[in-house]
């Protein structure tokens, strides 16, 4: 923007860089030590590894994957993340379209209700939710956590897609109506194709959220076969095995973070847009 010139400017620049560098270091160091520790041999490890090992190993990753069941957990996390995101996104698309195109009594109230429920955290409803799931006989069955997660994701998804669809030119839908298109056709041939960026963003943000969630799978998928990565880490971390074998734990943590890093690398713009959209409004 504006740079003071001469040595005053240089001094300011050094201060700026120094400050940001320190902050960046603080932000990156924990992940750095996580990675470093994950490649340490368990026998060489003595509590803290600040520098990369001279004889790194992939043993921790192998062990965590094949012996501690992280392979299964990875699959479970993926299933939970992708299905709940898919369900939430598709249901939200239909609802957003309905809110945008339909006029009916109580529409404003319903929309306000949806916006209000965005603020309801899982912890508040987890008690009756687990009871409901037990009564439905769904605890420890696939649908329970997936539906619960999707339900939690829906309000925000509807909000995102509604604000986006609302900005599509009304004339397009009016032209389609006069042309004889049914609402279904308007939805599939006009609304959805034009809402593609918002759909991608909604899906990604939802998938990330579901991937990261601890509480729902902890309560609703208690069977060992259904453990997700986050639940696995939560059980392993504070346990004896975790505290005694830090490299193993760090390998597990790294595995849980990798897909996010990949998603971010590939779709950074879509993800960031989703986060900022929630704030712009």
């Amino acid at each position: 923007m504006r740079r003071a010139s001469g040595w005053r400017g240089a001094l300011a620049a050094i201060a700026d860089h120094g400050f940001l560098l320190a902050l960046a270091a603080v932000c990156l160091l924990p992940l750095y030590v996580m990675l470093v520790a994950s490649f340490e041999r368990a026998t060489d490890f003595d509590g803290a590894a600040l520098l990369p090992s001279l004889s790194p190993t992939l043993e921790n990753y192998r062990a965590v994957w094949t012996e501690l069941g992280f392979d299964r957990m990875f699959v479970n996390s993926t299933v939970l993340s992708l299905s709940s995101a898919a369900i939430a996104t598709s249901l939200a698309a239909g609802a957003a379209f309905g809110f945008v195109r339909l006029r009916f009594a109580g529409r404003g109230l319903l929309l306000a209700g949806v916006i209000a429920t965005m603020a309801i955290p899982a912890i508040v409803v987890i008690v009756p939710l687990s009871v409901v799931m037990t009564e439905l006989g769904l605890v420890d069955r696939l649908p329970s956590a997936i539906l619960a997660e999707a339900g939690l994701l829906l309000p925000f998804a509807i909000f995102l897609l509604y604000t986006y669809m609302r900005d599509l030119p009304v004339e397009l839908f009016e032209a389609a109506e006069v042309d004889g298109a049914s609402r279904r056709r308007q939805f599939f041939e006009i609304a959805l194709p034009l809402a593609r960026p918002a759909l991608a963003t909604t899906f990604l943000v939802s998938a990330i959220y579901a991937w990261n969630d601890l509480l729902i799978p902890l309560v609703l998928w208690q069977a060992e076969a259904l453990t997700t990565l986050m639940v696995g880490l939560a059980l392993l971390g504070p346990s004896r095995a975790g505290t005694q074998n830090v490299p193993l734990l760090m390998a597990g943590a790294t595995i849980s973070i990798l897909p996010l890093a990949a998603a971010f690398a590939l779709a950074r713009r879509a993800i960031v847009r989703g986060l900022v959209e929630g704030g712009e409004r």
Partner: protein
Amino acid sequence: MGSSRVASGDGSAVASLALTGAHKVFPGGTQALRGVDLEVADGELMVLVGPSGCGKTTALRAIAGLEPLTAGRVEIGGADVSELEPAARDVAMVFQNYALYPNMTVARNLAFGLRARRVAREERDRRVLEVARALELEELLDRRPRQLSGGQRQRVAMGRAIVREPRAFLMDEPLSNLDARLRVQTRGEIVRLQARLGATTVYVTHDQVEALTMGSRVAVMDGGRIRQVDTPAGLYDRPADTFVAGFVGSPPASLLRGRLGPCADGAIVCAVGDGAATLGAPALAARPALRAAVGREVVVGVPADGFTLGPPGGGGLSGTVALAELLGAETLVHVELTDAGQAGARATVVGRFGRGGAAAVGDPVSVVLDPERLDFFDAESGLALERPAVR
């Protein structure tokens, strides 16, 4: 557009339209339509014209079904369609901003309405190709709207309507986004197309020049009401009220304050400003309503070809030339009159004259009114005092 003949419906496909007692109040209280009655005959090109906010677009959308009426009826082909969805009314609409589907190619845009109505693929392709050929869109069939120019998009919008062979066409200022030259050119093409198709069309515009050159009949609207429905000549020669008089024409008539008084030989004299115009008995015979209005204040409409300029003191209204606009073969002269407007304020008459002979700015002149060309309106209601149709 192209020279090949576009398959028109066999005429039985098009229908008449009617709005009866149409009222539209928007939530929030705006009264867009205050009792509109309009009839459009089978195959006619009816233009709705008026300033922005007059309700013309609302009336069009009401016919399409996009705007449900608060009161009144919409009829298409004699049947009441007021409760029908737009999709069921079988009309086609061309939007001001074209409303082309951005994610579809031109071909799919054209075919959309046919697909929505489940027309068979062969028939669909045939019609799309035919219309594309007629509108010179063949080469553009695989392009997306964002790759087209304004004029091309406009043609696709028209094509999308034509290909459906609807009962009526509704056009909402389809030319207002084009540049002036293209607008004039396309205007003519639309008129020719409409004639060839024999399609019932309602055309909305705010440009009165466009309205007068296009429509077989024109409806002038203001404030949610129709002021007059007539042929273009009728609107110009016999305006029904002061609004129409002051709106139609290039330039429109000038409106002045006057008072009718009796005169010798059964004539009537109209005092305007510091001058007068006299209507003799023969002229009055054709305008009986004027007799009844003797003694009243009136608004006098002076068409641009309704007066001559003479030297000062020449027996007309005194005034000064305020502006002289050279239009090429003609000159528009604005003369400022003292004491001829509302409540004694200044007023201006604008006249059209041939080149040369017109006075220069600042010259004092005398405005000699031609009594036979004047229109008279009731000062309070603004409605015209009756006048026969003979000209």
